[in-house]
């Protein structure tokens, strides 16, 4: 048995617009380890959501996967037929989205929507489906499960709706749960609750791929982290290593920006310049125009992921192993 639930190798996903090809996901390779929470962090538009959608086979027109391999539990899932993908989705592979309100069908009772997942993949009776829905509602911390099942989405609060989404995703006991910004739309106290629920699910044996722009969320729950910038992974490491010893200038800048908020400094750290246009990526390292260490080499050629001291720590920077002065 492989110890990676998900392996992505050299994934490229692009949008083909009239202005040209927008390379949303650019040569991404990542692993999600069994029963761990793996995080992808990055600013909006860095391609983290598209990576997730590529795995699910939910990339919308005019986008499509150009190349790359995706293996779920050792089994190749790129190139599966639509029907085979359908039998995977919701069953072995499931996903929750950012907006818990618009992600639920407004004219269907939430209990029905959760049961639906079960009934697509398993032959169960109505009673059995209802019983198991009630059970999973309890598991994800929805009190008063039976009456909540008869509610329509708009009657529930944001936190409850996200719990319903999780119940829907978890009812078939999938191997991998992809959570795309699951707490961004929620309040602080509710966010903490949902995150602790995700931790509990992980302890129960589910592998989770958590996508967030919030370094706080990542630091609190992830075991291993990938940092994305302009469609590429720029650094990967286990969470503590990444937060303690970031090497890529972008990671450093991002962490610096987040931590300067609580350092009490009068001026907050920022990153000069703006995020590059995915349509016209700079040649070479995409962070080079904003990087103070930028050398000629950085502008000419895209650096490879280089190993850094420390196990499982890689960074896409020519200076990854140059010690700080």
């Amino acid at each position, binding site marked *: 048995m492989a110890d990676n639930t998900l392996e992505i190798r050299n994934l490229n996903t692009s949008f083909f*617009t009239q202005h040209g090809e927008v390379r949303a996901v650019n040569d991404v390779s990542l692993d999600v380890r069994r029963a761990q929470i793996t995080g992808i962090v990055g600013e909006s538009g860095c391609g983290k959501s598209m990576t997730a959608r590529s795995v699910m086979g939910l990339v919308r027109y005019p986008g499509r996967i150009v190349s790359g391999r995706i293996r779920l539990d050792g089994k190749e899932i790129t190139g599966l037929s639509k029907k085979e993908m359908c039998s995977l989705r919701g069953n072995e592979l499931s996903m929750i989205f950012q907006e818990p309100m618009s992600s639920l069908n407004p004219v269907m009772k939430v209990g029905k929507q959760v049961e639906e997942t079960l009934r697509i993949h398993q032959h169960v009776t109505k009673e059995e489906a209802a019983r198991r829905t009630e059970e999973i509602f309890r598991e994800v911390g929805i009190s008063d499960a039976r009456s909540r099942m008869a509610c329509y989405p708009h009657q529930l609060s944001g936190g409850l709706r996200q719990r319903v989404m999780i119940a829907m995703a978890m009812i078939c006991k999938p191997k991998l749960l992809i959570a795309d910004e699951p707490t961004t739309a929620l309040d602080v106290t509710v966010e903490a609750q949902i995150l602790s629920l995700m931790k509990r699910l992980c302890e129960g044996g589910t592998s989770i791929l958590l996508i967030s722009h919030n370094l706080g969320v990542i630091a609190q729950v992830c075991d291993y982290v990938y940092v994305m910038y302009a469609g590429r992974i720029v650094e990967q490491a286990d969470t503590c290593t990444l937060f303690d010893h970031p090497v890529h200038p972008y990671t450093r800048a991002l962490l610096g920006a987040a931590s300067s908020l609580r350092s009490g400094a009068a001026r907050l750290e920022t990153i000069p310049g703006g995020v590059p246009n*995915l349509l016209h990526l700079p040649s070479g390292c995409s962070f080079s125009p904003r990087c103070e260490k930028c050398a000629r080499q950085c502008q000419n050629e895209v650096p490879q992921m280089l190993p850094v001291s420390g196990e499982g720590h890689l960074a896409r920077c020519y200076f990854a192993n140059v010690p700080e002065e």
Partner: protein
Amino acid sequence: MLSNRERKIVERFEKSRKIQSAGSLRSQIGEEETFFTMMRRMARENKLAVFSAIVILLIILAAILAPVLTPYSYSDMDLMNRLSPPSSAHLFGTDEAGRDILTRLLYGARVSLLTGVVPTIMSMLLGALLGVVSGIYGGWLDDLIMRLADITLAFPSMLLAMVIMYMLGDGLINVFLTLALVNWASVARIVRAQTLQLKKTEFVEAARVIGVRRGKMIFRHILPNCLPTLIVLFTLNVPAAILTESSLSFLGLGLQPPSASWGLMVNSGRQYLYAAPWLSLAPGIAIMVSVLAFNFLGDGLRDVLDPYQKK
């Protein structure tokens, strides 16, 4: 409560505004979208709309140049040549009074274009004004305007047009008035609904914080942002007005002979449908072509003005 069609239009533009502001892929690409680039995009993506625009231009030209294009008069009878089939002298044949059908078609284009455009402009001006006022000021004024709109919309539009025509009597001006009176209400309701939505937006709130007065607000923020809706409504209402006019004339309630109106021509040709089908067919097709052209152009414009449909 809005009718379905109205609700659709309003919702779609609300959505498109959100999408536009969410600045998805397009703002990332960061290309400026002006009126001209929009039109160019439409020209590139929607050949049918361009073709329709050309057809409409041709109809306009034909209407203006009618006296130059044809040697015949639209009203002079020639009883020797009644119901003659299409020939080189009379390309589309002649009618029951021996008048050249092509000539009457060209002059009829004047009536159709005018009845398409003039009452539509009238109803849009009236509707937009009442709708904005209703949405901005609210209160009893809103109630009054909206109840009037409800009452107007309570009649089947054809029947209402018939009764108003009956009341006003025949004539081109009365046709204009009738069509304007029939159509203002739905424009008013759509504009009102959009005004209410715009009122809730942050940029209107921002203008209030600055201290912009309500009157200025209408012209600076509300109407310019209603413009795409109004343009689309215009292209939808023009063909509808052409159809209503031709239907009224068809029933003998619009213009009276010997005026050349396409609807009237279809009607008078009805008795000869089996002996001389070209009498009705030619004006019927003319109505269809012009209405289709406006509808296609409207569709094209809507697609272009509506970022929601953009890829």
